[in-house]
């Protein structure tokens, strides 16, 4: 048998661990990643030469980040790393790529999709003002670019990233104006029993909160009706907490409400999707090893459902072992079983975390018709609701056809989830009914001209 052509998309924790396992088995996978250097978003590296120590960049996760980064030189010559390369289409058994050398196509016998996640954005008044960033964006500005999003920054969110990013800003010397949790404090207690399954991780989370408290950062829970105000850019944030109207002066806001998986390539690859009520999104159907419904296509990490960086490492390796098994190559079955057991244990913690940060449905309920929902096309929530009801758009693709929601530059990557939430609530139907925006190539915008140079 000719050497199987294996492609891994994504050089985050899942993709790197998959590559390591594949290389270990003697394969030479092609690794496609948009960034210049491996690490993914979670362990994103600064541009060459920025030279800040890992401890400063990744805090308590520095050792893990360093281990993932160290895989690249360790695997040099054993993987074909295509850096700064976008996989913009998957059709049949090939990916269309766009990299520094122009467009190319890579064929595969087996494919591992470790495409990661982005912040989950939800609209609220003023969310499109300059100075509002996603929490993940605020974090990347800090760790990859060494800059803060503002001088006096407020943070708003509904997930574990909220105290973490706020803490990182604090340690970087930025004034943290307030930390606003859109979920109730009581939820943290509800999540506690399950989170005790990973005491070290839980302790880290509590440490972040303690640091913020010690520094005197105002913290609010069950924050409602946030709105950003300012002339041309962020000047203040108004919100309700405990039934009291409050105001925080700030020049930037980091805000997002959880994570959403990047699933477009799995969709284009023809994988079957299913609705995951825990993360309120449609994800590629997969078995415990990461096999998708399509033969020889595997999904791992946050791109296959939200599990976090530690789970991503395990899932990437597990998917690689499944790939080896399915190609009839030798693999370590004991290791595979251990990985699945570890993933199951991490999932207990994850469920606790999800209970601690439940989805803030009030953000959808309180969203007024005039607030813009789709930034690219400038479509307000009211237009979507009108399509959902008056025009009987029962799912998001229909609403997209009628209103252009999700039809712009981001192709719904940023607004698609919010659109599904708004549509389902407007129709009084289960969220799963609202569906998901079908992926259409290119996954991200591609220029006209480079496509013509080949």
């Amino acid at each position, binding site marked *: 048998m000719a050497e199987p052509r294996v492609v891994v998309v994504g050089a985050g924790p899942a993709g790197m661990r998959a590559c390591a396992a594949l290389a270990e088995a003697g394969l030479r996978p092609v690794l496609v990643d948009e960034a210049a250097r491996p690490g993914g978003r979670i362990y994103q590296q600064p541009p060459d030469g920025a030279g800040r120590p890992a401890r400063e960049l990744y805090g308590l996760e520095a050792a893990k980040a360093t281990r993932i980064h160290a895989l690249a030189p360790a695997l040099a010559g054993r993987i074909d790393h295509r850096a700064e390369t976008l996989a913009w289409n998957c059709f049949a058994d090939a990916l269309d790529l766009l990299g520094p050398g122009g467009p190319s196509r890579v064929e595969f016998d087996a494919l591992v999709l470790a495409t990661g996640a982005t912040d989950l954005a939800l609209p609220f008044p003023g969310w499109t003002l300059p100075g509002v960033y996603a929490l993940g964006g605020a974090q990347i500005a800090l760790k990859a670019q060494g800059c803060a999003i503002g001088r006096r920054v407020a943070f708003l969110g509904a997930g574990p990233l909220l105290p973490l990013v706020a803490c990182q800003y604090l340690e970087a010397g930025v004034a943290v104006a307030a930390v606003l949790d859109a979920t109730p404090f009581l939820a943290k207690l509800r999540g506690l029993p399950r989170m005790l399954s990973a005491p070290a991780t839980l302790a880290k989370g509590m440490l972040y909160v303690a640091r913020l408290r010690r520094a005197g950062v105002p913290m609010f829970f069950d924050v409602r009706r946030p709105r950003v105000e300012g002339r041309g850019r962020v000047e203040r944030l108004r919100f309700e907490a405990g039934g009291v109207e409050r105001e925080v002066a700030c020049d930037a806001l980091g805000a997002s409400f959880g994570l959403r998986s990047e699933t477009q390539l799995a969709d284009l690859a023809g994988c079957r999707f299913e609705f995951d009520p825990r993360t309120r999104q449609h994800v590629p159907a997969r078995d415990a090893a990461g096999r998708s419904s399509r033969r020889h296509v595997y999904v791992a990490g946050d791109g296959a459902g939200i599990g976090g960086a530690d789970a991503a490492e395990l899932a990437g390796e597990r998917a690689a072992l499944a790939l080896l098994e399915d190609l009839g190559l030798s693999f370590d079955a004991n290791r595979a079983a251990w990985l699945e057991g570890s993933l199951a244990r991490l999932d207990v913690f994850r469920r606790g975390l999800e209970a601690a940060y439940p989805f803030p449905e009030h953000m959808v309920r309180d969203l007024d018709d005039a607030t813009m929902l789709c930034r690219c096309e400038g479509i307000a929530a009211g237009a979507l609701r009108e399509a959902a009801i008056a025009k009987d758009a029962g799912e998001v693709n*229909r609403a997209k056809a009628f209103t252009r929601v999700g039809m712009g530059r981001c192709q719904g990557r940023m607004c698609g989830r919010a659109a599904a939430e708004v549509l389902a609530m407007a129709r009084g139907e289960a969220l799963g009914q609202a569906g998901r925006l079908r992926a*259409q*190539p290119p996954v991200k915008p*591609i220029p006209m*001209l480079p496509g*013509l140079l080949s």
Partner: protein
Amino acid sequence: MSAPVFDVAIIGGGTAGCAAALALRQRGMSVVLLEKGACGAMASGTNFGGVRRQGRDFREMPLATRSRALWDRLPAVVGEDCEFRATGHIKLARDEAEMAELERYAREARDHGLELSVVGGNAVRALYPWLGPKVAGASLCADDGQANPRLVAPAYARAARAAGAEIREFAKVESARWTGSLFEVDAGPASARARRLVNVAGLWGGEVAGWFGEGVPIRPLCPNMVVTEPLPYFIDRSIGVCGGNVYARQVERGNVIFGGGRGWGDAQAGLSRPRADVARDAMARALEILPQLRDARIIRTWTGFDGEMPDEIPVIGPSLSTPGLVHAFGFSGHGFQLGPAMGEILAELVADGRTPSPVEPFSIGRFASAPPAPRLT
């Protein structure tokens, strides 16, 4: 109690089917429409959006002229304009031979009531300074235009439903037969019986015709479409070229939509996908005529299924095998403009047994010796 017998059952929720449902209701007939997916999701919704008479086979011209009048009336008929704009359509020549083709077509078009204005060389550049240097001439049909294909069939479907038609979406018709007194249409829980049957099932129309012993050589046509991010508005006409290997328009929002070539489609599986290599060829051709697209970014590509006949004109007219059955399918990539008129024409054929529009050239009889079209999912 048995299920009601409708006056008319319609298979297919494209523009023609939805417009026919509305027109039949306006004549007081009871109507059920069965659509395998959502109305307007196939060829009616995924096409380029050209509303054009220029360049048509002259046999289609009376139908297209009738339809053109209806496009102006959309707000009155369906409650919205579906972004129809009479921007005019220019067809471009890229060399002398194509220029001669434009002039010849314009001469003949006059006999069919279509006034075109053909200009060459410097006049083209004066009128359309945004066209590339390769353009040798242009033929303008000033009252052609463009519309948003995603809106038209659903708007007709809503209007038909409001008028009392029963529109059953996600109702895949598995088979249909004539019992000698009525049509039985099998679609699981959406099954229906009717005295008349309209086959407007697009690519799937061939299979429906086959159930009644009428074979047609229909094939899938998947136009490969591309759209850019929004750009400052500069293309104030809809554009085609001789030979048709690229076409473009800019919507008011600013996006430039262009197409050319064929995508991939597996009609048996009901799957279609745009092709990257075909899109790249279309980009090259689009840049020749619209050099300002140099720095544009592509945000989406798509395709969908239409049915294409070997002579590139549709099948329209009564079945020759079964009384009460009327066909209209196989619009071969240029049915969008005809949709509104097809609604009226089908209603006339069903209710009156005849139409003032000349549909004889489109008779299914021209394929009398063809084998039945294959079964599609």
